[in-house]
């Protein structure tokens, strides 16, 4: 005999299941449109890509691109500011709609989706003038102390290069991970580390902004990787909409204008097959 209690439990269970599953296929794009805002996770300590101005407003190359694309979609960007180490985990958990300035790697592409590239990145090595570094080749950096932004692709790249050094019986590069670029440079200025490794445009910007310090760009390290915006894999509609918005900024010349403004040069970026294998 089916008791009333069991029927109630069954009803409650199916209602819950219904609620949970019915919205599980709603793309983030639809939710964003309902909300009127685009949830953007961002770490604004990375000039010229994203940084805060004197009033605390978030600005920079990617920030302006986001504003342009969001406006086209009829949305306003709502920034969720946090240290980079928390951004990709949050994106994977579905806490944000998107995040800018991600290096495109094969590993990441398995777990998140990318829009079309917004920039090209090559990493570089920054040191103090007068340091004994010969070049930015990994062999010449063996045994040194390097500051990096914690959990970023430059840190992962250096970790991979350390295994190469080990194979050649050279001392590894000691890595120190900080939350912001400024902290990595402060660490070097305080002689806690010998070099800083990160995106070249960011380091170039740092030499300009910190003209009070004797900084010198030693050279590039690692290959060129595209930079794109990251979206959770479940939201393909959103990824497509963002990519369309970016294509529109290319067509209207806005992207080139922003590139000149923030990098001093323009780059041709691929729209297909840009994900490394």
């Amino acid at each position, binding site marked *: 005999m089916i008791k009333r209690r069991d029927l109630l439990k069954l009803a409650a269970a199916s209602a819950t299941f219904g*609620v*949970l599953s019915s*919205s*599980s296929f709603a793309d983030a794009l639809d*939710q964003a449109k309902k*909300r009127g805002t685009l*949830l953007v*996770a961002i770490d*604004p*300590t990375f*000039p010229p890509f994203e*940084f*805060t*101005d*004197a*009033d*605390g407003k978030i600005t920079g190359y990617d920030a302006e691109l986001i504003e342009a694309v969001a406006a086209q979609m009829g949305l306003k960007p*709502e920034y*969720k*500011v*946090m*240290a980079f180490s*928390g951004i990709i*985990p*949050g994106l994977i*958990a*579905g*806490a944000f709609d998107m995040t800018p300035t991600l290096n495109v790697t094969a590993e990441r592409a398995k777990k998140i989706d990318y829009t079309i590239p917004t920039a090209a990145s090559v990493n570089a090595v920054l040191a103090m003038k007068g340091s004994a570094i010969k070049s930015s080749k990994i062999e010449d950096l063996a045994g040194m102390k390097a500051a990096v932004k914690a959990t970023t692709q430059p840190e992962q790249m250096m970790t991979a290069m350390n295994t190469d050094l080990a194979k050649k019986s050279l001392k590894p590069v000691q890595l120190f991970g900080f*939350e*912001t*670029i*400024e*902290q990595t*440079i*402060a660490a070097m200025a305080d002689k806690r580390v010998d070099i800083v490794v990160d995106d070249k445009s960011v380091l170039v910007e740092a030499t300009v*902004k*910190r003209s*009070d310090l004797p900084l010198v760009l030693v050279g590039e390290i690692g290959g060129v990787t595209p930079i794109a915006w990251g979206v959770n894999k479940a939201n393909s509609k959103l990824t497509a909409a963002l990519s369309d918005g970016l294509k529109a900024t290319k067509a209207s010349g806005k992207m080139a204008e922003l590139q000149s403004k923030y990098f001093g040069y323009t780059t041709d970026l691929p729209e297909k097959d840009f994900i490394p294998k």
Partner: protein
Amino acid sequence: MFNSQLMLDSLPLLAQASTVTIKLTVFAGILSVVLGTLSAMAQLSGQAPLKWLSRAYVSLMRGTPLFVQLLVVFLTLPMIKIDNAAFEAAVIAIGLNSGAYVTEIVRGAIMAVPRGHVEAADAVGLSKFTISRKIVLPQALKTCLPALTAEMTIVLKSTPLASVISVTELTYTGVLIQSRAFTAIEIFLPIAMGYILIAQILLRLSRYFEARLSLRS
């Protein structure tokens, strides 16, 4: 060289950020006291499952770092389809964490209420519920007010962790200013002062309430 202009220019931003800190502290504090009191009563209720539940809650909250608790709450909410709730997640995590410590505080205070009062109320015919509400709890809360205030100060001091889940409060705002101003002392000193100030206000408020409550009884 101390750049006092920078410090002055940063003050508006820092003041605005401290409202986030204060809101976090107040909401998490309220949640913490409510949860802690319920949990303490559960432990003293004599009912085994309630007691076990409360003990498990306290053990879990005290045995794991708040940092990890914040992350787990933040990463779980989207799974149950709650979107864009970083501030709420922070309030919940900090409140839950602090509630475990409040449990112990309130439990001790409830046990310290003289049995005579409870027995007298019972003899007069008041229900168990009314006894709790009108006799035991008011006295208990008054007794543990200093300890509760100390716990609220700890809640205040744990708000910087909320920045890990994108709640930009006072400390992280300082990090952001540091990242474009390239200097630390002009920013972190005012921030330290800010926290001390808020803590002092908490202390004064608590002393005021303590005095008022003593007057009444």
